[in-house]
């Protein structure tokens, strides 16, 4: 399509090209899933919610699988990926982005330690049980320390809990900070708001819990095991609570923008009514929040009929995961579709085959599921799920 057809009104001549593509939509989406999954696991690890225990370790593995790919969309997007490491060596501290390397690394260490501590007993048992390369692998994972006495395990648990307590603020920071990357840009009226970090965080938790629900259902189905309804409906309950917080903040943002009606309101109105009308009102709000909100209420009030309720929870979770993706899209792409001249709009047209295209985005999004599958073979988290059923 000719570039003229993608432009409405007047945009600054340099704005014809959208700079941050679908890969940058993935970045907050993936880190959000990481933060959300971690926070879901800490419902058990920190807050001692026993009903979450069956999926707590699984949630940690999920967080790790997504965390391992979180840097990929960013690096793929850079004009000079080989210089990316400079962000660690010579961070320019006034930039919100400069903290990324450190926050990411710190969080990775926390997640790894947390996983190690909660799987240590299994690792040691496997190291003692297996022979050959498997023995070597598990012994290395155990760091050649095989003490699984009751006292030692108790110490592990205590330490894991302390770690998870640090983990919550760091998960919140990891993702809140991603929100600030956008929220701190005064040049862009669609991004610039102090609410952005907290909106990002709430949608992160929502997407993380929904993802965990979907993965739990898929794992149970693949392993032909019965679903622990107590766990499932408890997750659904938390999903519902965080959905309310999420939508309240998102609405607050839009309502105050409309109410204050600053000079940018005309272009924001155009963005909402034209550029991202479908993805915002349709996908993000209606399908992503309103429908699951109603479905989850029904799940909570309905008695028995577990199969139907499970289906409703599953549908809600799928909608939420899609809705949060739409939310990231509406922020990242939407913000770039309005001109900073406040007088025009442009259109992002995704390409399939290119360094910043849909294909690499799809690969990056599929990768964590493969990593997670591998992880569950090395560190099976199923024991907790099955134990609760007996």
């Amino acid at each position, binding site marked *: 399509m000719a*570039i003229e057809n993608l432009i409405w*009104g*007047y*945009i*600054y*001549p*340099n*704005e*014809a*090209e959208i*700079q*941050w593509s679908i890969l940058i939509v993935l970045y907050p989406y993936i880190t959000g899933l990481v933060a959300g999954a971690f926070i879901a696991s800490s419902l058990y690890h920190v807050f001692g919610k026993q009903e979450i225990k069956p999926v707590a370790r699984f949630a940690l593995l999920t967080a790790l699988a997504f965390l391992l790919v979180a840097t990929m969309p*960013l690096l793929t*997007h*850079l*004009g*000079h*990926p080989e*210089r*990316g490491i*400079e*962000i660690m060596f*010579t*961070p*320019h501290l*006034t*930039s*919100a*982005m*400069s903290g*990324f390397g450190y926050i990411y690394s710190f969080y990775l260490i926390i997640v790894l330690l947390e996983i190690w501590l909660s799987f240590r007993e299994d690792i040691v048992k496997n190291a003692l049980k297996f022979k050959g390369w498997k023995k070597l692998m598990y012994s290395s994972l155990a760091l050649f320390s095989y003490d699984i006495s009751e006292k030692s395990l108790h110490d592990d648990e205590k330490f894991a809990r302390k770690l998870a307590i640090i983990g919550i603020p760091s998960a919140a920071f990891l993702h809140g900070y991603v929100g600030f*990357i956008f929220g*701190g*840009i*005064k*040049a*862009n009226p669609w991004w610039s708001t102090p609410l952005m970090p907290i909106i990002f965080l709430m949608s992160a938790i929502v997407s993380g819990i929904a993802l965990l629900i979907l993965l739990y259902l898929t794992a149970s189905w693949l392993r032909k095991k019965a679903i622990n309804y107590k766990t499932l409906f408890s997750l659904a309950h938390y999903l519902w609570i965080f959905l309310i917080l999420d939508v309240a903040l998102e609405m607050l943002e839009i309502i105050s923008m409309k109410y204050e009606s600053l000079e940018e309101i005309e272009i924001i109105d155009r963005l909402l009514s034209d550029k991202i009308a479908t993805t915002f009102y349709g996908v993000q709000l209606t399908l992503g929040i309103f429908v699951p909100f109603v479905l989850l209420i029904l799940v909570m009030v309905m008695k028995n009929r577990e199969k139907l309720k499970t289906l409703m929870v599953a549908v809600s979770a799928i909608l939420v995961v899609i809705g949060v993706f739409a939310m990231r899209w509406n922020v990242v792409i939407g913000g*770039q579709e309005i*001109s*900073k*001249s*406040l*007088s*025009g709009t442009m259109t992002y047209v995704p390409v399939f085959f290119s360094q910043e295209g849909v294909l690499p985005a799809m690969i990056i999004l599929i990768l964590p599921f493969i990593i997670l599958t591998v992880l569950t073979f090395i560190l099976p988290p199923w024991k907790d799920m099955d134990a609760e059923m007996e």
Partner: protein
Amino acid sequence: MELSRREFTKFGCKIIIGAAAGTTLIESIATIDAQEATSSKNYDWTKHYWGYIVDTSKCIGCGRCANACKLENHVPFDEPVYRTWVERYRITNEGREEKVTIDSPNGGIDGFTDDIPADEVKKAFYVPKICNHCENPPCVQVCPVGATYETEDGVVLVDYNYCIGCRYCIQGCPYGARYFNTEKGTADKCTWCYHRITKGLLPACVQACPVGARKFGDLKDPESEINKILDKERINVLKPDLGTKPKVYYVGLDREVR
């Protein structure tokens, strides 16, 4: 080929005369710049603080500035990227409301066409745009590796050997003054022709402007033309509410201009 002595002498004379004439021509072109140009080796950046003035009432929208800039700084002509450009504003009546039509086709390089009948246009003017070299530059603030920086003499530059190409600065600039240089894989922007101003020359856009709508000078020099204009005229800057403190000052800036 065999040359007689006579032919050899004739040939030799031609070469000498030709070479001398050629040198004179090159020299005479060079003196246009060389009269003012000094070596940038002696340049002391602590002694200057540069500023820029745009008088919108003078601009005729010829686009020579934007063209000169692309030539001088090797900005690709076939990509929609500009270090400077000219915007046209036309205000017409639409019922009881005023309608503002803004355009800048190819940055104004090829001039403008009359697609609205002249008698319908109530008010029209051109506004040249360029990097504001802000005193408080958001692009410098957001660069995660410090690849974009302010020089001592108040110019915002990009270190092309250091920029990682994340494009956060392009997002951070409220004026659309930055672009992505696909060849270098880095961000790029106006330098106020730093290679020229450190030799005592004017930026290419200022030199190319036939009507003096663009002025460049030293804010540290009380006698400079731009200081005299700043003292005399009513001045505005673009998007002053963002607190960026631009050093491109506008004379006759209309409220429609952002």
